[in-house]
């Protein structure tokens, strides 16, 4: 344990090649060139460059951390070497692409990619530039590790914030434009990207704040501040109040589009809260959760539509029916799977989800629920004659739904039923032996989960004003399952965090367009490897996971 890992030159070469392969892969799948069109800092670099250099810089940094106790020259040298080696596979690609037509096999090895890789220069000059630039960037990354924290932290923090602002510059641009007018927007941004001067400013401010934090913390370490429990309670209460107020005024700050994004997140939060009961609390793996969402949406759609299918209900009169219908289906679909376990349950529920979707799509039911043409002309909810058409207004409906669902979940978790669910999750047989009625407990979990999902579906239908069967495919179920696990299974705030990451973030990163699912997949893997308990884990699950970690046996490394 204690002996320091020695890193020899072979390992450095391997790591460099690894970085090179990552960069090469990102290049040949068109990731780099697609993002190459998206400037981060106007005229200086694009998002494509960020991803191109991410691998060597990251790996050099990690490696440097491991060997930073050794001499400076070695650390810097190794860093530089990693960068140089990274460039080699890319140079091979450049040579291949310029001498053969490899595009007939690999469609994304486009001239734009080669242009980006060679910085617009010819083969030789471009390759040399590539080697030098990756080398120097990796060297700097390695060098950063050698700096004392008081310098390192401000620099990394400044860079991170600049990149963050650059990434979201389009959103920021629209916000700045909305609040300060186009004049200011033009001052801060060039096109959609950050102006170099703005970028520099952000870097300096963020670095200064980080510096201030570092120095302050080293001071505050000397005098530990005691916080009395009353004070803590009070600050907790203040935090809750501030939280609620900021939730209430959020749409005013966010504007139309971001409110729309928040609404999408909110609908997923509602579904996530429901599935969290089924999977997180009761441990029943449900892969067809979208079925209840669909049922809620379709009931709302049919009841309220102003088209030929509709029955003329209003949003508010239809809402109870939507929720009720999904709940009933939750119980109905729950019954045949009561005796199934684990993966059998998973595939059967997945089947249910598909059955509902296909039936919605089918010609068989077309005359009742619209088939492929969907249900159109669904009115938006209205309150006192005021139509909630704008996302900013709809936000409050969703917020209320989420708060109710969160409150119910929270109360259920600590209730008798909640403890029965936990017991069920731990061990079904033991739970049964303890006198827990498995049938009721399981059906209640399915019913509650379905009710939340039905509510989400009802709001979804009304928000979208038209529903099509394609909106209810398997990906939705997978998305909801992933978001509760990424957030931290069984944890209520985790659902919100998960939804923000998996639903909100991709909305904002529309540049990634066709690579969104690739990023999503990679994120899920990395996330599970690094933080299997999720971003905001519930306490019990965290404990369990750590027990598992410590259990590590000698047989697997």
């Amino acid at each position: 344990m204690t002996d320091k890992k020695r890193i020899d030159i072979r390992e450095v070469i391997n790591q460099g090649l690894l970085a090179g392969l990552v960069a090469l892969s990102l290049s040949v799948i068109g990731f780099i060139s697609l993002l190459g069109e998206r400037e981060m800092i106007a005229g200086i670099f694009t998002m494509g460059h960020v991803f191109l250099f991410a691998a060597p810089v990251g790996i050099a940094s990690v490696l440097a951390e491991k060997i930073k106790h050794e001499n400076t020259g070695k650390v810097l040298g190794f860093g530089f070497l990693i960068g140089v080696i990274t460039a080699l596979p890319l140079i091979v690609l450049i040579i291949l692409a310029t001498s053969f037509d490899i595009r007939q096999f690999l469609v994304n090895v486009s001239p734009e990619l080669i242009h980006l890789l060679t910085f617009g220069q010819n083969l030789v000059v471009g390759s040399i530039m590539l080697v030098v630039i990756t080398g120097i960037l990796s060297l700097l990354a390695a060098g950063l590790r050698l700096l004392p924290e008081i310098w390192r932290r401000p620099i990394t923090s400044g860079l991170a914030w600049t990149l963050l602002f650059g990434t979201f510059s389009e959103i920021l641009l629209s916000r700045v434009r909305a609040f300060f007018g186009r004049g200011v927007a033009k001052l801060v941004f060039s096109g959609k990207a950050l102006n170099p001067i703005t970028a520099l400013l952000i870097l300096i401010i963020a670095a200064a704040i980080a510096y201030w934090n570092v120095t302050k913390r080293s001071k505050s370490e000397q005098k530990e501040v005691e916080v009395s429990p009353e004070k803590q309670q009070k600050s907790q209460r203040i935090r809750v109040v501030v939280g609620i107020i900021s939730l209430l005024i959020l749409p005013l700050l966010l504007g139309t589009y971001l409110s729309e994004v928040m609404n999408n997140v909110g609908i997923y939060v509602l579904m996530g809260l429901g599935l969290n009961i089924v999977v997180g609390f009761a441990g029943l793996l449900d892969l067809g959760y979208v079925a209840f969402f669909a049922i809620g949406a379709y009931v709302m759609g049919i009841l309220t539509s102003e088209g030929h299918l509709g029955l003329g209900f209003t949003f508010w009169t239809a809402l109870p029916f939507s929720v009720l219908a999904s709940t009933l289906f939750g119980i109905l679909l729950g019954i045949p799977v009561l005796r199934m376990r684990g993966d059998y349950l998973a595939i059967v529920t997945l089947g249910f989800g598909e059955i509902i979707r296909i039936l919605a799509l089918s010609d068989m039911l077309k005359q009742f629920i619209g088939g492929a043409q969907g249900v159109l002309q669904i009115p938006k909810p209205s309150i006192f004659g005021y139509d909630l058409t704008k996302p900013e207004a709809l936000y409050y409906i969703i917020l209320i739904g989420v708060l109710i669902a969160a409150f119910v979940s929270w109360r259920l978790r600590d209730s008798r039923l909640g403890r029965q669910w936990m017991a069920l999750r731990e061990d079904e047989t033991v739970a049964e032996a303890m006198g827990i009625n498995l049938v009721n407990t399981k059906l209640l979990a399915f019913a509650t989960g379905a009710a939340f999902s039905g509510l989400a579906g009802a709001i979804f239908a009304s928000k979208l004003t038209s529903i099509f069967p394609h909106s209810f495919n398997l990906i939705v179920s997978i998305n909801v399952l992933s978001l509760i696990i990424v957030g931290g299974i069984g944890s209520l705030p985790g659902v919100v965090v998960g939804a923000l990451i998996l639903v909100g973030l991709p909305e904002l990163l529309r540049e990634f367009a066709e690579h969104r699912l690739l990023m999503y997949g990679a994120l899920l893997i990395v996330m599970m490897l690094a933080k299997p308990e999720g971003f905001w884990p519930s306490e019990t699950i965290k404990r369990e996971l750590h027990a598992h970690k410590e259990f590590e046996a000698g047989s697997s490394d």
Partner: protein
Amino acid sequence: MALLEVNNIHAYYGNIQALRGISLTVEKGEIVSLIGANGAGKTTILRCISRLVGLREGSITLDGEDLSKSKAHELVYKGIAMVPEGRGVFAKLTVEENLEMGAFSRDDQDGIDNDLDRVFSLFERLKERRNQVAGTLSGGEQQMLATGRALMARPSLMLMDEPSMGLAPILVEGIFDTIKEINAEGTTILLVEQNATMALQVANRGYVLQTGEIVLDDTAENLQKNEMVQKAYLGID
């Protein structure tokens, strides 16, 4: 030099410390018994030695060779075989296949065939059922199978975890007779047993374990006479 030397090992399950500085030795040709109550850490010691559980501190050496860097599947190549707790036969494999798995580390087909005959002569019952799936065997037969399977590796040291557990008393005697027989043929044995009476009868030496620590170690004879051992483990008041 002792065949097996366990030196001051600490092991944890989660944050719970299961072993607190265990040291013990097993000499070549011995039968050493580890006795102790449920949860005292007996099984954990065997799992540490066989590398199924990681160590936080301490060392384990076999014939002077450090084992702490080895992986579980390498140990059998170094001469350690284990009869795991609950027997751990492969229920869906046949008796013969189970025994073949015991000889997984070996390539000498002739030698394996010989040893197969030897195991079958040691346990006649297994021979009758050689093509039967192991899950259908009785508890005693499964114990025979697990023991025979360990023998198939031709180990120099055999770790046995609770061989008598869940068996009828008549069978228990048979098992301990077999243990003696195996030992007589030259295999060193480290035995973990709750049935302290039997364990100390066959053993040369013994260790008494309490809540992760060794509280007594002596020859089997002396331990049998020890008042505390008699009270706590032998059921003699």
